[in-house]
């Protein structure tokens, strides 16, 4: 409390605005890069992503009173961002029904078994995955892309991603696993294109004998 506290209600209103702004600065602003990455994953376009970040922060500031102090600010910002994006597109997508997550997960393991057998795994072991993944992620389609970005890049839990995307957890899970499977398919192609797979297979045949 300051000596000025007894002065006028205008002063205390100013004080509460100051607190609000300081909280907003401390809690919400540091995540701008993360919001930008997520916005980019939705818009796939730098200029639209920038507009979306501005819209997100403006909305966040105006509804700052609804933010629960101590809760996950990134999750809150991502949710606002997603909603702003949907509203800007004026679309409600009816997503195709997916196979369930367990089936996707098993399919991934089986796919990787093939990669172990045909030498792709060995080829992948020799390369830097990042450049290939960057391209693969750019090409990954929605709704798989948002799920992968939120969980794998932005560390959101399944529960948080479900809330942000407005879908059940099971849907996040199956989208995520399907997205990972598609990324791995592209990595396998990348490794093969790089010419490593055939060499690795040849070596494998020798060593298996």
């Amino acid at each position, binding site marked *: 409390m300051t000596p000025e506290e007894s002065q006028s209600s205008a002063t205390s209103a100013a004080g509460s605005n100051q607190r609000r702004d300081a909280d907003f600065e401390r809690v919400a602003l540091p995540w*701008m890069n993360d919001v930008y990455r997520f916005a980019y994953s939705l818009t796939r376009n730098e200029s639209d992503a920038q507009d979306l970040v*501005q819209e997100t922060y403006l909305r966040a500031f105006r509804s700052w009173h609804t933010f629960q102090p101590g809760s996950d600010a990134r999750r809150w910002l991502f949710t606002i961002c997603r909603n702003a994006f949907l509203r800007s597109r004026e679309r409600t997508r009816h997503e195709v029904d997916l196979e369930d997550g367990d089936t996707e*997960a098993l399919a*991934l*393991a089986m796919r990787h078994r093939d*990669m172990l057998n045909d030498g792709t795994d060995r080829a*992948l072991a020799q390369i830097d995955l990042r450049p290939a993944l960057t391209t693969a992620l750019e090409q990954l389609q929605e709704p798989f892309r948002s799920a992968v970005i939120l969980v794998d*890049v932005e560390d959101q839990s399944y529960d948080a991603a479900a809330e942000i995307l407005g879908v059940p957890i099971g849907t996040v899970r199956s989208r995520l696993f399907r997205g990972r499977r598609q990324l791995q398919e592209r990595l396998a192609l990348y490794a093969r294109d790089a010419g490593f797979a055939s060499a690795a297979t040849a070596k494998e045949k020798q060593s298996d004998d």
Partner: protein
Amino acid sequence: MTSTPPNRPSIGSHSHAGEVNCTRAMQQLWDFLDRELTDEQLGAVRRHVESCSSCFPHKAWAERFLEALHSLRDERLMPPELKARVMEQLRAAGYAGAQ
């Protein structure tokens, strides 16, 4: 699209506490790596994949894959002028913070 077998256990359930077979371990591999299981389930999957020569390579690959994916965080940074534009707009909306 295939339908779900009626007797397939859901994510949260398990038939035998503390033990999973290869199929179940692979169904739960990503949940395991994402820490989306109960402690008991995590332990069961961990014990299986650490000791099963068939499942272990899948886990090793999945870990490397996720690590590489996560490292992409550092690759897409916002353009430097965006921050200034956001701040300008916030000020117009009444924000008066230090930044």
